[in-house]
């Protein structure tokens, strides 16, 4: 097992290098002067010259890439055009909001997706099965930016149940420790802030969870159906185990194996979808920050944000692979 984990971590290095090469090349393959692209049209000639020297833009491409990697190792992702802040500092400030949103969305999608999948599989061809699978198919086909707006109209504007946007209402005090607001509220035992943070996250998280939920439900259903046909399930039933035990203890454990991989992949979907969801709900995370950067053509931010999200995605995929090996020991032997 340990050898497998080490091997997987070693594969991480070329993948991360690949990500950095793509991000590096994107800037250099774009028509125009990279320095001007990075600093914007209003930059002075001195500033441009300074950046050209700093990035080594007059050197050959491979030397430039080497310098780029060196800066990355030092955590130097450059400065934003508009706020003149270090990109890395801004990423650090914003990523907890994105992770919080993605994690809550994934929890919602796993919980409901698996429940729908399990019930559908155990009651195959029932009305529930048909309805939930049609629902899942609609979920996979859903434009989430539209769904978010529909939720806003229904739950905020018409019913007034949930707040329209943001992470916390104005006037609610919260001592920020980790920047994960829900966690901070629990740590400081600030229950009004906890309730407010949860209230704010419901709509964006449910919106973001739609597609992953549908995919998890479909995957769980088919994996469960496959497992429920196996002989050992018949044996478990024959020896008189309760239906609950057969489903949750015997069937689900094996059905979970493909589902875990799917859930891991959904994290990527959630990170990509976060740009849309955060933009709609004015959620101050990396996604909205990148959207603003795209609109303002702030390429330092686009570069830094892309690197960060891609690296996060790669690391999460690694964790999923390791988790997969833990649940399914046959993998590490192979």
């Amino acid at each position, binding site marked *: 097992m340990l050898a497998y984990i080490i091997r997987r971590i070693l594969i991480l290095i*070329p*993948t991360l290098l*690949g*990500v950095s*090469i*793509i991000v590096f090349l*994107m*800037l250099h*393959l*774009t028509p125009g002067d990279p320095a001007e692209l990075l600093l914007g049209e209003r930059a002075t000639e001195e500033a441009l010259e300074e950046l050209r020297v700093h990035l080594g833009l007059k050197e050959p491409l491979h030397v430039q890439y080497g310098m780029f990697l060196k800066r990355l190792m030092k955590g130097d992702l450059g400065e934003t055009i508009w706020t003149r802040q270090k990109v890395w500092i801004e990423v650090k400030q914003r990523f907890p909001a994105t992770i919080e949103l993605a994690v809550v969305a994934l929890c919602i999608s796993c919980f409901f997706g698996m429940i729908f999948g399990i019930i559908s599989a155990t009651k195959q061809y029932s009305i529930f099965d048909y309805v939930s699978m049609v629902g899942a*198919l*609609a979920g*996979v*086909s*859903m*434009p989430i*930016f*539209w*769904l978010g*707006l*529909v939720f*806003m*109209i229904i739950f905020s*504007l018409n019913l007034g149940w949930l707040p329209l946007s943001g992470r916390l209402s104005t006037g609610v005090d919260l001592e920020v420790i980790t920047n994960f607001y829900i966690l901070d509220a629990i740590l400081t035992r600030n229950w009004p802030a906890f309730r407010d943070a949860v209230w704010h996250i419901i709509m964006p998280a449910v919106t973001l969870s739609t597609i992953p939920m549908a995919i998890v439900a*479909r*995957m769980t259903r*088919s994996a469960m159906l496959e497992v429920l046909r196996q002989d050992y399930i018949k044996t478990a039933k024959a020896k008189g185990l309760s239906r609950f035990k057969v489903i949750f203890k015997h069937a689900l454990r094996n059905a979970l194996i493909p589902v875990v991989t799917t859930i891991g992949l959904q994290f*990527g*979907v959630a*990170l*990509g*979808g976060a*740009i*849309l969801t955060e*933009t*709609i709900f004015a959620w101050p995370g990396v996604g909205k920050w*990148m*959207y603003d950067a*795209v*609109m303002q*053509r702030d*390429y330092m931010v*686009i570069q830094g944000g*892309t690197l960060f*999200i*891609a690296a996060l*995605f*790669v690391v999460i995929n690694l964790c999923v692979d390791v988790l997969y090996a833990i649940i399914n020991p046959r993998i590490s032997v192979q």
Partner: protein
Amino acid sequence: MKEEKQNKNPHDRHPMLEQLSQLWRNKTAVIGLFIITIFFLTAIFAPALSPHNPLETSLYDQLKPPAWYEGGSTKNILGTDDLGRDTLSRIIYGARVSLIVSMVSVGLAFVCGTLLGSIAGYYKGARDSIIMRIMDMILAFPYLLLAIVVVAYLGPSLQNAMVAIGITYIPRFARIVRGSVLEECEKDYVMAARSIGARHLRIIFLAILPNCMGPLIVQTTLSMASAILDAAALSFLGLGAQPPTPEWGAMIARSRGLILRASWVMTFPGIAILLAVLGFNLLGDGLRDALDPRLRD
């Protein structure tokens, strides 16, 4: 039992006919095909079907509600937007834009992915490693993020959105083709083609690839669905279709500021996206069952 009666010896039928009849028996696939056909017909006959010019603004008809709302009229059945443009006409023309974008981007991914995948699978060795590592690099990015970033660098436009979506979809095709080609290469007919001295390109394109079509067709259909979604998302973010192009995602983006006053403006383009994507997903699922049982989830 019924089918057996109709066709006493099913082994006599061409496998393609068998798959087609299987597809026809699959209700979801038929529904999907029906929805897609309607969208294609709408796109082709848009000028004849749309009651108004989708770009024509009308000062007197701004934010008219749909016909069944109070104050609505049959002149604009689905209402109008803030510039008085007819929503129904824009949705009808939007079908053109969405289908063209998805066909071009998926076509690009199909051609590049198939070429790269077959080179990797057929020649193996260093070429395989290099191509597949590049594919892995692209796969290391969440799809939508990569598409957004590519458009951000190339500049916002519908053409660039197509290129961006196409690039992000290449690995899915390359992986499937490589896998199928690797499998097919071991079979006797490839050996036979080699032994009679057929050239590599001939073996790949005339012998191997036709046998890998099943999973490729399924992937193409499912990719069409996600391409429509992604193109709409890019346009919603202002990175795809530019005004005044009637594009569903851009229509929703424009109506964002109006949700308090006129929620119908955003309702119908969203339903159009949902239905079009659903159609391709239904057909893709049905095709998968009919053409490639191994891929069934």
